[in-house]
């Protein structure tokens, strides 16, 4: 496989084939439409449940349109320190993703260099971690030993590289032609330069996907924060949201002695609103990432 080194745009589909092609296209559009519908309805339901009155939702009256629209649920969620948590989450996500991408690229590149004398060793080192890990307690001990407890680094360093994602990046790097790198070497470029000036720019599509994957996993993660963060003002958003999600169940346990549970009526609306609040930022960021792999991508602009 060769890679063109000039800019290439994905062309509009060429009208070719005959009747069978049109049948296929029509069928394809319909099928995708159907899929969209099947996915959209539950999500639509989540939205309308989140803005409906709790009692109506509970009685099962909300199905097509919201009933007795209220923003009370959102007001409840946004009560307290939620903006602080949100700010923390953004910080952890941005910094964490940056570290992830840099580290993963650093790790992936040497593993693609066939001439690298320690390639086999490093590949083995990395692959083993796919299968074996110490588990929660040894990790906790390690984080404690390294003095990371209750700091932002406890959320970033222990997961600095996801070996899965790193391997996907490696696959993308490996699909670039060797000739490109060899010629750069002949021009006197060192590997660091080659990585950052040639390899990374040429793998934008995959890397942007990885940015998305890493960012989403940072955004959604709560487990590490729960273990390693002691100070409430450092909590990420998800800790708070997750706690809200199960609040109904938890408060029921607390009421062994028969204390009331006014929350029951708004439990479902609360859950729906929580999903919306945690998904919305991803929804907003997604289109910016999406253009890299949907509308075609500049395949490099390096002069050979």
């Amino acid at each position, binding site marked *: 496989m060769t890679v063109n080194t000039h800019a290439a745009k994905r062309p*509009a589909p060429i009208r070719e084939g005959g009747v069978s092609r049109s049948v296929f296209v029509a069928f394809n*559009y319909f099928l995708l439409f159907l899929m*969209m519908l099947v996915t959209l309805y539950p999500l639509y339901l989540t939205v309308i449940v989140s803005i409906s009155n709790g009692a109506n939702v509970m009685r099962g009256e909300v199905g097509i349109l919201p009933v007795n629209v209220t923003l009370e649920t959102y007001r409840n969620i946004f009560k307290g320190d939620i903006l602080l948590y949100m700010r923390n989450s953004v910080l952890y996500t941005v910094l964490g993703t940056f570290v992830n991408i840099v580290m993963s690229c650093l790790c992936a590149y040497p593993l693609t260099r066939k001439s690298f004398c320690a390639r086999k060793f490093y590949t083995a080192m990395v692959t083993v971690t796919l299968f074996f890990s*110490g588990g929660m307690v040894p990790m906790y001990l390690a984080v404690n030993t390294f003095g990371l407890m209750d700091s932002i680094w406890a959320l970033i360093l222990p997961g600095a590289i996801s070996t899965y994602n790193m391997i996907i990046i490696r696959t993308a790097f490996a699909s670039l032609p060797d000739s490109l790198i060899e010629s750069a070497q002949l021009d006197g470029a060192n590997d660091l330069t080659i990585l950052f000036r040639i390899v990374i720019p040429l793998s934008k599509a995959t890397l942007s996907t990885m940015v998305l994957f890493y960012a989403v996993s940072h955004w959604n993660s709560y487990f590490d924060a729960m273990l390693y963060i002691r100070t409430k003002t450092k909590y990420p958003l998800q800790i708070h949201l997750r706690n809200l999600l199960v609040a109904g169940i938890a408060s029921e346990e607390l009421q062994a002695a028969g204390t009331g549970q006014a929350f029951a009526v708004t439990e479902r609306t609360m859950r729906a609103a929580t999903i919306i609040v945690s998904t919305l930022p991803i929804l907003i960021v*997604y289109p910016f990432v999406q253009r890299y792999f949907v509308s075609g991508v500049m395949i490099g602009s390096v002069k050979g």
Partner: protein
Amino acid sequence: MTASGPIRAYKNSLPNRAIKAIRRDRWLFLIMLLPTAYYVLFCYYPMFGILVAFKNFMPKEGIWGSPWYGLRYMRMIFADSYFWHVFINTIVLNLANLAVTFPAPIIFALLLNEVGSLAYKKTVQTITYLPHFLSVVVIVGMINDMFNSTGIVNTIVKSLGGEQQSFLTSAGWFRPLYIGSNVWTNIGWDSIIYLAALSGVDMQLYEAARIDGAGRWKQTLHVTLPGILPTIVIMLILAMGRIMNVSFQKIWLMMNGGNQQVADVISTYVYQRGIVKSDFSYATGVNLFQSLISLFFVIITNTISRRATETSLW
């Protein structure tokens, strides 16, 4: 001082060759420095925790100080006939799941790729990746709403003259429901990686194929698929590595007396034993066993794929 060109060493002694190689690859070693530090500190250092599977773990003594227990936990696990039952369940469920959920996003990505209208394509994509973000509780709640005795599915079945099915409590329906809802949840999200790979397929190849008179179907078969094959293979091998992982929470919520026979998997069983919570040694033992099984699956897949496609994990 550039390390370029094939300079052959004539002094062929081993240390000399090694030094030469290290000198030549010094930039690569340098690049690898931070990742190596990461793997040593955060993967290998805690990995000693695996020893706990062979010890009677005492929190006060730490991992090293705890007394050895030998293979006691392993024996406890393997002597249990029900463990093997849930082990088979786990593998069957995951293989079936893989057989459906693995190709689905690829087909979806290919179909999406055939769409001419950019706006339509973007819309479909944006909407279908969203279920990925729903929590398991919500998804199982929806399954229950749709498939219970008065749910929409049974209503349709009955209106078509069929007999009411107990989807939620029959052993036969558990796997289809579990797998089907997995497809629904993840098809959009999982296709992202293939779409990225598709955008990397060389346009010139399509042009060349067109000149050769290949139709859309032929182009898909001979250009598109080979173009994204390395990605597919790697994703498959990685998926094999997770063959023992199941969504504990989802199964736990979907399991009942009617379907337990097929739904009970290792994680739910271990959870029921009530051991995991406090018995860290037992849990580690089970994890170690699961790791070994997935390693076995990956080695097989990797070997096959290396022979067949020249793409492999190592």
